[in-house]
């Protein structure tokens, strides 16, 4: 009966505070639920100010958490769940029946006041169930927000890397252009055959096509980010930073990743809360299974010329045809289903954490390998080639082909760095929030082939 009074009214935040805390802990950004025009105005202002400078990954996540309209729709789940809870804490309205019967000059008036006793008796239990459901809703909403945050973070890394990729492809194109132009002039001076000239020309032509493709990919990545942040109109003219953040000095140490994940993950929490909630409704069904309706009424009948007739009326439907066991069996299976789902999720979460941890370490090592080994080696090769060019040991065409290889290696490093940051986001998600999705290392990052250069 304490609950009865406590929960019969709406909370001022609709449970959003706990969502906010959960999301904030996991994304270091604060979700906002804009319910009124005034609040929507504030969000718009906050978005505008965040877009005032080059967009960081954190800012992108912050914008998504307050401006992604799908997420706003999800926030409404809280209100719906809380309404259910409040509803459960309220008694069904009593029924009042009145009958007035006339036979000749005889008047018969009957009054009955009927109350559904069962709902009164089960109200605390039902309130508790709704309470749990509300908690599930809060965890799910937080999970959804964390998922959008992770998606946004990944999209930001992809967009920045793609933008950098365009820059490097542009350089490759410049080199190819110089080669082609030089080849043309050499053909004009009579020093180059049509075959040699065509070879340089076709490389340039192909590079131009490749640049168009890379540019389109960059637009797609940026639009994905734009969608996740819920931006349109003038807001789409945001600027991204020139470069991805540097690789951390050392990778995170992850000793108890699996148990941490089981403790922190929102989807695991939600599944467990769900199972609990189903368990309590199973208990209720067991108790009330065969009682379909118990109603108690007070009757007051008065008839002309007769003393009034008073008394109680109890109505109980007999469990002859429906003993309620079907409902109990259904509830039992629903419960087992919830338990198995939660168990499945726990197994998956552990596996995902292992995969994400491995992906994180691999991408970290790969990015470091590119940064510390491959890129410096390419640089050294380029330096040595300049020396060979100085000695007229190789031609300018070989020098340019090598410059393209060097550019490609820098680009491969950027892709490796992007893969690391995406793996980092995936790991964060797998550890604290929700399923990160596939965490495979990008296969697009491949060593530039020497064969192309050798031909020049």
């Amino acid at each position, binding site marked *: 009966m304490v609950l009865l009074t406590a929960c019969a009214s709406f909370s001022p935040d609709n449970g959003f505070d706990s969502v906010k805390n959960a999301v904030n802990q996991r994304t270091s950004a604060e979700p906002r639920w804009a319910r009124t025009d005034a609040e929507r105005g504030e969000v718009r202002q906050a978005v505008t100010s965040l877009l005032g400078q080059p967009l960081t990954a954190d800012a992108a996540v912050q914008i998504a958490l307050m401006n992604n309209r799908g997420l706003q729709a999800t926030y409404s789940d809280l209100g719906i769940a809380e309404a259910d809870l409040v509803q459960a804490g309220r008694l069904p309205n009593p029924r009042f029946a009145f009958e007035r019967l006339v036979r000749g000059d005889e008047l018969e008036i009957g009054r009955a006041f009927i109350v559904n006793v069962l709902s009164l008796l089960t109200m605390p239990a039902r309130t508790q169930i709704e309470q749990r459901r509300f908690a599930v809703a809060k965890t799910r909403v937080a999970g959804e927000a964390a998922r959008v945050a992770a998606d946004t973070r990944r999209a930001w890394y992809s967009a920045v890397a793609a933008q950098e990729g365009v820059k490097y492809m542009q350089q490759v194109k410049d080199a190819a252009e*110089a080669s082609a132009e030089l080849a043309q002039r050499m053909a004009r001076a009579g020093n180059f055959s049509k075959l040699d000239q065509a070879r340089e020309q076709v490389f340039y032509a192909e590079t131009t096509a490749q640049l168009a493709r890379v540019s389109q990919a960059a637009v797609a990545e940026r639009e994905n980010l734009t969608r996740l942040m819920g931006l349109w109109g003038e807001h789409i003219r945001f600027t991204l930073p020139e470069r991805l953040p540097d690789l951390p000095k050392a990778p995170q140490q992850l000793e108890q990743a699996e148990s941490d994940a089981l403790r922190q993950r929102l989807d695991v929490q939600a599944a467990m809360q769900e199972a609990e909630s189903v368990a309590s409704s199973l208990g209720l069904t067991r108790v009330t299974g065969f009682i379909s309706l118990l109603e108690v009424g007070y009757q007051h009948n008065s008839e002309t010329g007769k003393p009034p007739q008073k008394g109680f009326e109890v109505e109980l439907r007999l469990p002859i045809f429906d003993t309620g066991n079907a409902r109990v069996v259904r509830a039992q299976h629903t419960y087992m289903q919830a338990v198995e789902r939660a168990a499945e999720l726990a197994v998956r979460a552990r596996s995902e954490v292992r995969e994400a941890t491995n992906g994180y370490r691999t991408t970290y090592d790969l990015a470091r390998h590119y940064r510390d080994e491959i890129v410096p080696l390419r640089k050294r090769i380029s330096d040595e080639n300049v*020396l060979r060019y100085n000695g*007229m040991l190789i031609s300018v065409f070989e020098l340019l082909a090598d410059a393209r290889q060097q550019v490609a290696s820098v680009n491969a490093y950027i892709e490796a760095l992007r893969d690391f940051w995406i793996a980092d986001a995936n790991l964060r998600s797998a550890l604290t929030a929700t399923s990160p999705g596939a965490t495979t290392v990008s296969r697009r990052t491949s060593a530039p082939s020497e064969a192309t250069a050798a031909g020049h």
Partner: protein
Amino acid sequence: MTNRRNFLRTTGGMLGAAVVSKAAMGAVPEAALQTSPQTQPPLEPSNGRPYQPVVTLNGWTLPWRMNNGWKEFHLVAEPVVRELAPGMKTHLWGYNGQSPGPTLECVEGDKVRIFVTNKLPEATSIHWHGIILPNGMDGVSGLTQPHIPVGKTFVYEFVMGKSGSFMYHPHADEMVQMAMGMMGSIVVHPKNPKFMPVDRDFVFLLSAFMIEPGAYTPKVAEMLDFNLWTFNSRVFPGIDAMPVRLGDRVRVRIGNLTMTNHPLHIHGHHMEVTCTDGGWVPKSARWPETTIDIGVGQVRSFEFVADNPGDWPLHCHKSHHTMNAMGHNVPTMIGVDHRGIAEKIMKLVPDYMVMGERGMSDMSEMEMPLPENTLPMMTGKGPFGPIEMGGMFTVFKIRDGLARNDYKDPGWYKHPQGTVSYEWTGAPLATERAPAQAVSAPKAREFRAVKPSGHSGH
């Protein structure tokens, strides 16, 4: 001159045990070692028959000892570091500290005993190229003798029958061992010192190496595409000049152990081939020349009277043999307008510089950083500017007033007044020329490829 050191390379024990000779000597003679690549002064014979010694260009003569009427030499085949020119050291195989090995000098009729110690990582042998000797002393491993195993010493004994100029080189894994620089000269002087005497007598070998820019060891599998053409494993500007007293009769003996022929050309004089590795050429068979072609495996000795003072080149006339390491696949850049492109390239390659637009002289004018241990392809400064030569190139410095045995570099020639080409500063001269031809080929005829017929089924 400098750095001559005689090392006691072998102490009685180890090698003494290795040498089981019919000659039953007490011990193997000391193997002298040379560490300097500079031309050493002639080694006057201190014992045995007298002769007029030779000067080995950027090399030296091996000392010997007399033992019961035998002239004993000791050659040690071993890995060496040879400076091809200042700024470039190479890892070669040679003899007694140098590649090529020391010149062996003796006299017609000498009984020679040559100890050969193998300190290479593989078996070797020595063939005495051009010398007539008993078959078992010919040094053809497998055919006339067993290979000289690693760490062992073999002995060759024979009589130098005929005077002239000869060579020595391995006849075991020959291609590799010669590609690594194993070779040397042999000069057999006439018994009669008055036979065809000369005042200055130079000797050297021609050899070629393929050493990748930045590397130190030759590519032993190279067949044709060599990039370093040498006189006695030296390239210009690392080859010493040959100082000559005005009026001297000069003999130059050149052996060719490269894989191609070399037309050696001399400036300012006529010369005659007077000897080959087959013997002396009768006067009636000689003809005057300024270029003599030396075929693969041949030795040619030419003589001339140095009657024209000045600095006169002697060089191979295959022009790429007077170049050091150069790219053989670089396109010709002459006449190609670089305007606007250089900036584009520099955006990607900041150290880029336009070269070759006017020719390759840029190389000798600009001093640009090169790969390590790599010589510029043409270099060497003369009194009037860059000489633009590398490889097989040197200079006879013919001067009045040098001492008979003076081999010191006398410096650049001081030309008498009015004997140097000069710039015309008078009125411009009218030059009549035919109109320049269009660069594009005239459209005289068009050819059409005819596709092979009979494939209509495809």
